[in-house]
């Protein structure tokens, strides 16, 4: 009896009133989500539109050929030849990748295949956190350590060189490259390795011939990320490379002072008058940079698709060419790489300034074209010799001075020598040789990043922590004094304000857009365009966001340099990341969860809000905290929109006032004629701690969540 009465008391069994179902808010919520998602998407596309609207009129006054082929960049005199800057950008990026990719890949191999599990865990965690080191900190290290080393080592007048730029970019890109490569190597299923071992292969043979080819898509992705990072880096470049808008002379001189697109914008935009042609020229540079990153992403997508096909075995659709009808056409098609190389080499010969560069450039280009052309025709097993040829060509090119010739001969001797030795030593011996190289590369990578951290910590700690008896040597309370008294408290509060503000703006927008995209958006062309737009903005350099912030907030809304403008610019910068991480996190929840909820008669939104979102929350939070870390570490987007150099107040209360920020404060310290390394190191260490703690928190959340995950 008692059980029956309890049943009778249950309202929804007795009560046949299902009217609550009609008060279904599903449609309303969908509309709201759509609305917010549209706003986010519009913002994302506005960046592209504004860039072209502001930069476009520049080309009505200066012709495209003058901009792209002119060799003299002096906006104040009306010279807008950006070619040296573009070439320098490519050279610096190329140098960085040549250094970072082998090092990163070797380190990843060490971590994924050779390191003991405990060491791997620790190193992996450290590396992921290190990916968050703000670029201004790298700039600091490059300026005060690396440049001095390069200057003294090679007996130069100054250390502001292409080489130091490439090196600092390489160190900067290392954590990202290692982390992505390691993930992809570990994602290679064990049964590939087993099959290889079962045929009597050594570990190294397995790694080189099975694991790396199978992990190629991830390695390509790492390469793209590395290039993106190198192309878009602003602050470190402003400090390190010297910013001379000239070609290196000769083109292969790694000790020459260079300028890249980002640093040119960063240094040049500030003093120009808004709306002038000079001002617009920097937007034209921004467009160039944006197109370059777009091209890198597109090429990468094509390559990734090809690799993907290798895994699924899908056939490539052959273009139908009627061979009988167009013999010339088919010949052209067959030798297209060579033809393109010839055209480019003529182009190079025309534009380059001095004779050596002309000849070297043209020969290298034809050589490369010929090599790659051969690569497509020659049978499989001969191909590696062609690859060696390419490497040699590069070696010759990079080092075409007399030292270069000498080094090239050594490289040739080494390659031939090792090949001859390899014929005679056992496979196990070869394995040992390669493992030694892996160990060397990974220790070099660790030492490079370790030195940077050590330098900053060793110099920064005495400033932050007051050692008894040493009180007099520094101003009191570095961390808690206002900037007038020589402290950095206003900068700390400013950075925190900017970070919180940016996430407060980006998180709601980004979350809604992410949920809409993954749960509601139909899989049509519009969605695809939106998604690829967001993806491209994800890899867009921060200086481009800075340009956008200047236009939208300072010009269109007529704001002054202020906290709000900085918050919004930073918010826009992390918006694409937040949208993507939310989308990924929500998508990772198995469809069966939603079905389970729908099968009980819930509405779609109930299912999402009560089941999917709670399960996806840790993923979203991780993304948000990473976004905060990025906000706190960025300098370029706030440089023109939000910062001031000194502040009387500890906290700026009005959002329409400019604030101090740690990153910019550090930059300003470093550009003073006589700066105190200790003060800069103290600021850098504070910034580093702030950002790395955020990154650490994000990864702890993620790893906890992954451990608890039951599905």
């Amino acid at each position, binding site marked *: 009896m008692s059980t029956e009465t309890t049943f009778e008391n249950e309202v929804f069994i007795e009560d046949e009133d299902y009217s609550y179902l009609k008060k279904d808010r599903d449609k309303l919520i969908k509309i709201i989500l759509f609305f917010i998602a549209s706003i986010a998407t519009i913002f994302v596309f506005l960046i592209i539109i504004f860039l072209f609207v502001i930069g476009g009129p520049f080309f009505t006054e200066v012709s495209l050929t003058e901009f792209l082929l002119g060799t003299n960049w002096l906006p104040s005199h009306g010279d807008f030849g950006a070619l040296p800057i573009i070439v320098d950008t490519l050279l610096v990026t190329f140098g960085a990748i040549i250094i970072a990719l082998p090092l990163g890949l070797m380190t990843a191999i060490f971590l994924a295949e050779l390191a003991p599990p405990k060491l791997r865990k620790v190193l992996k965690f450290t590396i992921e956190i290190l990916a968050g080191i703000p670029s201004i900190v790298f700039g600091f290290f490059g300026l005060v350590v690396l440049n001095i080393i390069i200057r003294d080592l090679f007996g130069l007048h100054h250390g502001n060189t292409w080489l130091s730029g490439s090196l600092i970019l390489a160190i900067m890109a290392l954590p990202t490259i290692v982390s992505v490569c390691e993930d992809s190597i570990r994602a290679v299923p064990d049964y*590939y390795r087993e099959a290889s071992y079962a045929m009597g292969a050594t570990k190294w043979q397995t790694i080189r*011939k099975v694991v790396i080819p199978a992990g190629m898509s991830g390695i390509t992705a790492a390469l793209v990320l590395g290039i993106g990072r190198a192309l878009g880096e602003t602050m470190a470049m402003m400090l390190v490379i010297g910013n001379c808008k000239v070609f290196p002379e000769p083109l292969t001189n790694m000790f020459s002072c260079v300028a890249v697109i980002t640093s040119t914008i960063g240094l040049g935009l500030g003093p120009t008058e808004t709306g002038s042609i000079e001002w617009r020229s920097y937007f034209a540079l921004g467009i160039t940079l944006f197109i370059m990153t777009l091209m890198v992403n597109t090429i990468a997508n094509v390559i990734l698709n090809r690799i993907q096909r290798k895994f699924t075995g899908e056939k490539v659709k052959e273009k139908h060419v009627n061979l009988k009808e167009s013999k010339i056409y088919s010949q052209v098609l067959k030798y297209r790489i060579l033809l393109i190389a010839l055209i480019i080499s003529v182009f190079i010969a025309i534009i380059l300034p001095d004779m050596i560069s002309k000849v070297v450039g043209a020969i290298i280009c034809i050589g490369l074209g010929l090599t790659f052309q051969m690569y497509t025709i020659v049978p499989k097993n001969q191909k590696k010799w062609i690859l060696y040829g390419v490497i040699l060509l590069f070696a010759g090119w990079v080092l075409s001075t007399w030292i270069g010739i000498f080094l090239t001969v050594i490289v040739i001797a080494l390659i031939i020598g090792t090949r001859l030795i390899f014929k005679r030593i056992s496979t196990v011996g070869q394995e040992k040789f390669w493992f030694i190289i892996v160990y060397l590369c990974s220790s070099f990578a660790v030492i490079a990043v370790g030195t940077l951290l050590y330098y900053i910590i060793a110099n920064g700690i005495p400033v932050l922590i007051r050692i008894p008896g040493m009180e007099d040597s520094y101003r009191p309370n570095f961390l808690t004094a206002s900037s007038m008294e020589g402290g950095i408290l206003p900068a700390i509060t400013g950075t925190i304000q900017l970070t919180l503000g940016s996430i407060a703006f980006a998180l709601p927008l980004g979350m809604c857009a992410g949920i809409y995209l993954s749960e509601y958006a139909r899989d049509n062309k519009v969605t695809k365009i939106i998604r690829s737009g967001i993806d491209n903005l994800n890899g867009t350099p921060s200086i481009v966001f800075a340009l956008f912030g200047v236009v939208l907030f300072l010009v269109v809304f007529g704001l002054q340099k202020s906290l709000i403008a900085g918050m919004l610019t930073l918010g826009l910068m992390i918006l694409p990341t937040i949208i993507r991480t939310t989308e990924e996190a929500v998508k990772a929840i198995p469809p069966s969860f939603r079905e389970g909820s729908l099968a009980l008669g819930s509405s779609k939104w109930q299912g999402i809000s009560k089941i999917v979102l709670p399960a996806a929350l840790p993923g979203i939070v991780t993304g948000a905290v990473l976004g905060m870390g990025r906000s706190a570490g960025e300098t370029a987007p706030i440089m023109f929109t939000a910062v001031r150099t000194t502040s009387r107040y500890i906290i700026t209360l009005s959002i329409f006032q400019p604030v101090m920020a740690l990153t910019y404060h550090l930059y300003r310290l470093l550009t003073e004629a006589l700066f105190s390394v200790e003060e800069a190191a103290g600021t850098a260490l504070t910034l580093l701690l702030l950002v790395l703690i955020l990154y650490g928190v994000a990864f702890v959340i993620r790893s906890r969540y992954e451990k608890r995950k039951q599905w």
Partner: protein
Amino acid sequence: MVFKSKNKNKLEIEHKNNLNDSNMYQDDTVIECRNLNLWYEESQALMDINMKFKRNEVTAIIGPSGCGKSTLLRCLNRMNDVIEGCRIEGEVLFQGENLYSKNADIRLNRKKIGMIFQKPNPFPMSVYDNITYGPKIHKIIDDKILTEITEKNLRRAVLWDEVRDRLDESAMGLSGGQQQRLCIARALAVEPEILLMDEPTASLDPIATQKIEELILELKKQWTMIIVTHNMQQAARISDYTGFMYLGKLIEFGNTEQIFENPNNQLTENYITGRFG
């Protein structure tokens, strides 16, 4: 050029060796386990296994899940070395020498003892690259020889006619059964003497399974085979000898006919008649 001709000789010698194999050993036993014990961390997975595998015969190992049959198979070419926390006592004699002795060459032995896995695992490369992977590992670099090896082994695995026009296409585009035959061809390409098969048809449909079984009967003429299988009918159809394992012990080992029709052990009978497993 010097290297190429050397390789050619090596290949020819290997080839002759394979043909002469049957005359080289008096005893029929190719591989033998003596008092083999194996532990994963603390739990013992194999207990005192004593087994002899005969030349050019198919030996099947059957038993319920987790009885250690795959573990035993993996002991025979030391694939357990890859697994952490795995400890082995006892001997595995291959051609009279202990695989686990200190001066045994693991890689040479693995080359001689090929292995096929439960899930077809072609590398994500072209068909040609899959087959030539092993020979390249073992220092054959001449294109002509590699092409010959590819054709020869694809024919051995009865796959040639199906893939002859798509050698340059990715192996991942083949069907499951084709992939498994490709894996067999790949294992044969390094000229092994024994083939270990770990449930080679477990992930295939009945028709592909039948093709693999026919292939096994064909390969038996030239190779010694040891097959772990879940499928008792399969063991009965294709094997000459059968071993029944239970909880890490070899319960009974003998002629397939005898095991299936007149088992000596009560456990074997129960398993075969389907009372457990």
